[in-house]
């Protein structure tokens, strides 16, 4: 891959990709391969499957970059949404074949230590990880089950044995707190 165009905003890079600029795609890849691959492998727990999905995601970016609309969200959000959606689709396909059911259990809150140790790899990532660590564990668990395993609120309630209303409250509280913390910290660093 080519050296990242570090100063180029995500939106500009994605618009260049929409014009079939291979260098722009390479820059997007270099900028986000780490976070996207980490997200995908966190969902799938399988390196080979994760690399396969990462490849699919970037080929989709190449084909669908023209669909990106900055008015409807940030470039990072668009990329992460693509990657998460693809990974969860693959997760469900694999789960239907019984390959990941055993791995999924027990991965709920064992990642914060790794996250902290890798904090130096991305300043923004480090801020987010610290913010997540600050969340009460039950809020963090509910958010992770929704985000990394693609469970609905009802499924999370069933998984944890908690009332549905409690799960909704925890997710809402966790997201509000996360937004407040990140809004302050990211604005001060950007």
């Amino acid at each position, binding site marked *: *891959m080519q050296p990242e165009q570090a100063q180029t905003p995500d939106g500009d890079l994605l618009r260049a990709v929409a014009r*079939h600029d*291979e260098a722009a*795609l*390479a820059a997007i*890849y*270099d900028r986000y*391969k*780490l*976070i996207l*691959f*980490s*997200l995908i*492998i*966190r969902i799938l727990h399988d*390196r080979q499957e*994760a*690399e396969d999905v*990462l*490849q699919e995601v*970037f*080929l989709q970016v*190449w*084909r669908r970059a023209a669909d990106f609309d900055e008015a409807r*969200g*940030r470039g*990072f*959000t668009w990329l*992460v*949404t693509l*990657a998460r959606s693809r990974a969860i689709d693959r997760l469900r396909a694999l789960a239907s074949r019984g390959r990941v059911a055993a791995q999924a259990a027990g991965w709920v809150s064992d*990642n914060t230590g*790794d*996250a902290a140790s*890798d904090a130096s*790899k*991305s300043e*923004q*990532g480090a801020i*987010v*990880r610290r913010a*997540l660590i600050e969340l009460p564990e039950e809020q*963090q668990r509910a*958010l*992770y089950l*929704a*985000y*990394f395993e*693609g*469970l*609905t*609120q*009802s499924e999370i309630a069933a998984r944890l044995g908690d009332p549905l209303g409690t799960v*909704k409250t925890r*997710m*809402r509280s966790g*997201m*509000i707190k*996360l*937004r407040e913390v990140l809004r302050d910290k990211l604005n001060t660093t950007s």
Partner: protein
Amino acid sequence: MVHEDYKELLIARALDALDDTDARVIDEHLGTCAECSAELTEWRDTAGLLAHGAPVVEPGAEVGKRIMDQVSSGRSARSDTGAAVVQMTPRERMPTKIWPNLLRMAAAIAFMALMIGTFILWKRDLELRMEVARLSREIRSQQSELARERDTIALLTTLDAQRTELVGTDQAKKARATFAFDRETGRAILLTEGLPVTPVDKAYELWFIANGHPLPGRVFTVDTSGRATISDQVPPEAREHAVFAVTLEPKAGVNSPTGPIYMSSSVARQL
């Protein structure tokens, strides 16, 4: 639902954590509410940051190369419309896909040709069978006709044959017939012409009249020209000085004449 109820669903929608029913409800609302749409965008940005919660793992170095290779090969295969096409399958494998397709097409064409050929042969065979059956019927008919003519000739040329001419009555003035029979065996033949076409429920009946008593002979019909060739057997009592006549009777024939006389030898009008 009031506006605040919809807003309660936005966070879960941003996490794709709503059940289907709630997801449909909020999605319908989002189509008409700019405020909630904007807020959902913010919540999606926040939700996207959860990706940072994953332990950092680096993909293999070859992944990026594979992506760029596929992008480059896809660009070379871009369609005329300008749409970007990414080759998800290596191009060198294309021939292996083309050949099975060609073979399938060839097999389909061969199968269709075979079916058409089979149908043509079947149809031709059916026509030939029908023609053979028709010719067989014609041959049998001609053989039967030939046999009758031989009998007729044989009878007419027999030295002992008795020949009698029948003439039409007022019912059929143009009708006439030749009646010949062998005195020894009684074998007889009647050759008619000029008789009216036989009505549907009627038939002509031959009579042997001996000593004033009519004895029934064959029942027959004629063709459109009034012709018929009838073989019969003259009873012994009618072989000497008999009179012969033809009447029109019910189709099944009768034992005693009931209908009008159409032809007769000289004195048959006495019936």
